[in-house]
């Protein structure tokens, strides 16, 4: 049964994982996402669906547990926040290199280092450019509401299994801690059959299954890398997700995701009240990045301003996408400071209307 609840973003993710029929969650506490593990422990999903929940000794162990479970063809997820995600990069590289599905939630906080527990978007590079060693990509989904926090868990698993690729839900401390109404989907049953590649025990009717990212033969290793790139191209062709706000007649375009995009919606209204024809493009998938719609809009607008809670990371992808067709600037706050709608309108004016 679908259910309407008032929940924190972190709790919504946890409940959505149970309802998505996840087989296991492995995690380690870190603010601002500890409610995910806390909720799962309190909710006893083992009794509800048989889902395994385990607090690992570290993020390193947690992501390697995800790797082990994913190799068995199971729906496995983990969550963490920035410093913890840095520790998970080794495991993520192995998971990508072994072509395994999983969902990883990053509730970003300000860095670098121990930084702050307040929200930020400064892990964009790490999320969309690979993050660990080797040429690989994660599928990156960026929710802007508690509803999307919940919805993207199920979508994440769907994409992860379809492409045999790790999926990251890139969100931040504001969305993780924010309470909103959320429609929760019906409980899905857990999978009963597993992909043919999974290590579930070699039966006499098939060859042994081996999950590895090792190939000492350079020619084979290159072939494998080319195959991965092929997959990423397919993702770019088929899985780009984005949203427009007031872009039909826009003269100036804001580009923002997640919390920043939510704030930019207000900025668009404020700008229009002042007579500035602003619009917003919100990438929902950060990889694959919505290059085409950006290119189309670049031909129509006089300037683009990216708004990110970082020193300017996504702005590089926007510039690459529009290929110098139009001026692209960046406005951002850091250290856990969330920009106000007014600041953003001012930044638009300062960059393009002086």
């Amino acid at each position, binding site marked *: 049964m679908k259910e309407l609840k008032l929940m924190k973003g972190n709790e919504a993710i946890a409940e959505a994982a149970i309802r998505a029929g996840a*087989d*296991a969650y*492995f995690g380690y506490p870190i603010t601002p996402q500890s409610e995910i593990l806390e909720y799962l422990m309190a909710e006893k999903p083992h009794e509800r669906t048989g889902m*395994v929940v*385990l607090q*690992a*000794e*570290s993020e*390193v*162990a*947690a992501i*390697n*547990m*995800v*790797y*082990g*479970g994913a*190799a*068995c063809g*199971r729906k*496995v997820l983990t969550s963490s926040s920035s410093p913890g995600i840095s520790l998970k990069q*080794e*495991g993520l590289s*192995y998971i990508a290199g*072994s072509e395994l599905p999983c969902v990883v939630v990053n509730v970003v906080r300000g860095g670098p280092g121990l930084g702050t527990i307040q929200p930020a978007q400064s892990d964009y590079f790490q999320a969309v450019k690979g993050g660990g060693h080797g040429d690989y990509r994660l599928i990156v989904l960026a929710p802007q509401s508690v509803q999307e926090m919940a919805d993207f868990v199920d979508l994440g698993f769907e994409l992860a299994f379809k492409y045999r690729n790790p999926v990251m839900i890139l969100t931040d401390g504001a969305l993780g801690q924010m309470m909103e109404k959320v429609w929760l989907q019906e409980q899905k049953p857990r999978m009963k059959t597993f992909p043919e590649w999974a*290590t*579930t*025990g*070699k*039966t*006499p009717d098939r060859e*042994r*299954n*081996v*999950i*590895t*990212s*090792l190939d000492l033969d350079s020619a084979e290793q290159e072939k494998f890398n080319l195959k991965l790139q092929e997959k990423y191209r397919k993702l770019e062709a088929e899985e780009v997700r984005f949203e427009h706000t007031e872009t039909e007649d826009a003269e100036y375009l804001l580009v923002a995701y997640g919390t920043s995009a939510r704030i930019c919606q207000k900025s668009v209204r404020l700008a229009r009240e002042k007579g500035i024809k602003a619009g917003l493009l919100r990438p929902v998938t950060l990889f694959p990045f919505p290059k085409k719609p950006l290119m189309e809009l670049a031909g129509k607008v006089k300037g683009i301003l990216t708004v990110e809670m970082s020193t300017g990371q996504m702005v590089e992808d926007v510039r690459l996408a529009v290929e110098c067709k139009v001026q692209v600037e960046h406005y951002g706050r850091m250290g856990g400071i969330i920009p106000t709608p007014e600041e953003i309108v001012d930044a638009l004016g300062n960059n393009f209307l002086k």
Partner: protein
Amino acid sequence: MAENTGIKDIVKDENLVYQKTSVLTDNVMHYCPGCGHGTAHRLIAEVIEDMDIQSDTLGVTPVGCAVLMYNYLDIDMQEAAHGRAPAVATAIKRLMPDKYVFTYQGDGDLAAIGTAETIHACNRGENIAIFFINNGIYGMTGGQMAPTTLSGMKSSTSPYGRDVQMMGNPMKMTELVAQLPGTWYVTRQTVHTPASVRKAKKAIRQAFENQKLKKGLSLVEIVSNCNSGWKMSPVEANKWMAENMFPFYPPGDIKLEGKLVVKE
């Protein structure tokens, strides 16, 4: 002997005393001649065959010389990042509690980069088996010092011998995890003589049998040689091992049925 005598003329059904187990593939192992890894692999494969659990066994391989173990055992296997095998095996066992799950790890893997994963899997009492090959050195990367390298022992990164003042003491990982309540069976074995091979096989079998009891974790250390890393012939290496490794790493049971073995 006639000129065209082949192996088939010598090995006949009536005089066959030993055969390769069907759980080993036909691939030629890459290990240096005389290395203990090959023997340890064979014993694990034989136990899986003897217990008839090929479909129910899942192995996790290390980073180290045994990284390619999955080429030799005809079972489903997963290759783990350096040191992380116990975490990987934890998840596999939690999701498939009725399967037999083992890790196979060298001392660099288990006692250096993977210390945390090893100790915590042991402490949680994960119902898995850990096979720990202790050759006192990093074999795969060319003979560097390991946590298990003996005091005074030469390696490529302790070329004048391990100076414990500077480099720390050799670590008895097996004794260490035996102290943890989660471990059920902890033993140290060797594979350098026919008698020790038979004992090691019994220990490996015990580790698999223990999984049926769901009592906790079994860790079987096998003190082995690395003739390449030690820069010795296989015969010299085994002699050196018995004289130098066994006094510090004495073979024998350390914990049985969850209780430390008391030695007089």
